[in-house]
């Protein structure tokens, strides 16, 4: 990655588009990097212009996570692929209890992608990274021919450091533990669906996309011995609970009435025949802790803006089959299974 400062003409942010030259590694690539990525991400490590970022870390346990982001539409109520790609990776790092330190970003751009959109997306990433206090210190850009991509794909990687005495893992849920969700479910998925071609409906619902490491820091401070943390993204709450039950070889029993769900999300799901338990979230987390710690953890979550609506939704039970069961608002129980394939809107 070379940072250049002088080009024969400025990048045409307003009406220009990505072309194959931007991925050639030559002058056009350098210009794109300098005038778009470096300008927005704006930090000393990136500005050094090396092919890698070098930094010192404190002694301790490092965590690393990577996440690819493909989403259609790229702009949606409450966010865009840019901030989503920052939040997604930060959250994966944070779910270990870690404090995220640095990120990298890889872009795959399709020929013809408007520079104006790219500028908007990169600005949104930069804002999200700045707000999170986690700089994007290295990156890469490739361009694929028209028809071989879907506009833009972004892969981000993050590293972080886990505080002393914290040991959060998906296999630590044990019978008697309480299950807590940080807020209402399904907001992100419904916001995306509301803008999908051929489905459009009007809603105030916005994606919940957010970086959760601040909330996690407050939680870990209150209860260092949190057993499990996970963000219920694709596959929704149901899939996350099944993953944790499987990993820990326990069952779970949750109460439908306790799960926060916005009226509009409920309505949209009814209209499209979807189950909100399987709809994606991008700014929520599931925490599992010992019953004795639950009140303390819940209080810590509720005093943070991203956990204001936190609720205990159920408990861990012994079950060699690792079933997740739910008491319905109607009074019966049912098993909440893994998601099978993508949930498709249906008419019957």
């Amino acid at each position, binding site marked *: 990655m070379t940072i250049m400062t002088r080009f024969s003409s400025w990048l045409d942010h307003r009406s220009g588009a990505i072309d194959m030259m931007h991925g050639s590694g030559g002058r056009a690539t350098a210009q794109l990097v300098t005038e778009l990525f470096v300008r927005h991400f704006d930090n000393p490590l990136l500005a050094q212009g090396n092919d890698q970022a070098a930094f010192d870390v404190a002694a301790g346990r490092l965590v690393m996570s990577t996440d690819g982001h493909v989403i259609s539409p790229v702009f949606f109520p409450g966010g865009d692929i840019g901030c989503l790609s920052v939040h997604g990776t930060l959250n994966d790092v944070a779910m270990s209890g870690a404090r995220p330190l640095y990120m990298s970003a890889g872009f795959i751009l399709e020929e013809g992608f408007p520079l104006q959109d790219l500028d908007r997306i990169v600005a949104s990433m930069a804002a999200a990274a700045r707000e999170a206090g986690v700089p994007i210190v290295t990156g890469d850009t490739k361009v694929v021919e028209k028809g071989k991509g879907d506009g833009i794909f972004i892969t981000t990687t993050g590293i972080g450091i886990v505080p002393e005495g914290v040991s959060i893992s998906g296999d630590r849920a044990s019978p008697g533990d309480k299950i807590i969700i940080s807020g209402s479910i399904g907001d992100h998925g419904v916001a995306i669906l509301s803008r999908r071609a051929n489905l459009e409906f009007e809603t105030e619902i916005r994606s919940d996309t957010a970086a959760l490491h601040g909330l996690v820091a407050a939680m870990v401070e209150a209860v260092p011995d949190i057993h499990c943390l996970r963000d219920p993204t694709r596959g929704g709450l149901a899939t996350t609970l099944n993953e944790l039950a499987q990993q820990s070889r326990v069952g779970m029993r949750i109460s439908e009435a306790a799960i926060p769900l916005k009226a509009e999300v409920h309505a949209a799901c009814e209209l499209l025949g979807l189950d909100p338990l399987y709809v994606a979230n991008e700014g929520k987390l599931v925490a599992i802790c010992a019953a004795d710690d639950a009140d303390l953890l819940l209080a810590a979550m509720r005093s943070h803006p991203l956990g204001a609506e936190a609720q205990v939704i159920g408990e861990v039970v012994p079950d060699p089959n690792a079933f997740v069961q739910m008491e319905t608002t109607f*009074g019966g129980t049912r098993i909440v299974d893994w998601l099978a394939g993508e949930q498709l*809107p249906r008419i*019957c």
Partner: protein
Amino acid sequence: MKYVDEFRNGALARRLAAAIVREADKSRMYHIMEFCGGHTHAIFRYGVQDLMPGNVRFVHGPGCPVCVLPIGRIDNAIELAERHSATVCSYGDMMRVPASERRSLLKAKAAGADIRMVYSITDALKIAREHSDREVVFFAIGFETTTPPTAVAILQAKAEGLRNFSVFCNHVLTPAAIQHILQSPEVRALGTVAIDGFLGPSHVSSVIGSRPYEYFAEEFQRPVVIAGFEPLDVMQATLMLIRQLNEGRHEVENEYVRVVTHEGNLKAQALVAEVFELRPSFEWRGLGDVPYSALRIKDAFSEFDAEKRFQVTTRRVRDAKSCECPSILRGAKKPTDCKLFGTVCTPESPIGSCMVSSEGACAAYWSYGRFRQDAGVSGVRTHKEAAE
């Protein structure tokens, strides 16, 4: 949500359940067929069967338009996209249904066919208007509920003079199917399928009204209670059926009066009659050829009929070996009677249609895990047991 949440009230459900226990005659069985997949779904999702006494059993019927569509028709839809390079639009429900050779619309799409999921047929019209260079075919499925929107779209296309829009019509009729079930040897002669009464369709009846059921309530001496799709509707209608059976009556009653009238929606019926006519016979998965059980597009609208436009011929394709969907659709078997259920056939890799449609009996058994509880799989206890 108004008119929805009130009918999902758990406290009222428990009181209704107690009334059913009180009023059901302990010396007899009540076999109640819910024709519609919507009822099957409600029964499983809300655990209505668990609230019933042991002598009240629900028998799941064939009322899921996705499940009853023969494989050959799905093959046809894929051919329209692949061989005729048409843009094939359909409802999300159809996307994963297995066609021949374990293909599906979704797999054909992955292989490059232009297949699009729409929420409404009006979206397919929109696609046709926007892409005048492409043939746009709407893969129409559904019972009387979904048929009137298709009629409106065809009339609209004609009024606009759309030249690149057509409909692959697979609309089927409810009363014909119910009658066919009642006439089947399993019910009539062999008695292997016991059906004492019917929960009548909710939304189908909003269009056709309650009148069409009067004939076979009388002819076959079975009571029909038209029921809404919310769980309290299902329970109240069940109680009404039990009362009729106790009193030896076999009438058509209507629990879903907030939407269903005796006449139904006359305007919708007129539009359907303008565009469609009866097919002499149509193949249903599970039921075989059922006379006068489906609709086709009238000659006056033949330019919008994909079957004529692309000379579609439907091959008869046998269901996968040992798949019990046909018997399950007739109410003759339960999903758990099928060897493939939960082993080879799961929602991830479905063999039969009943596992794909969220209204299919197999999918309902699987997704709400009732069979696992029924089978007494260790570790699964009801709340009551856990409390004891």
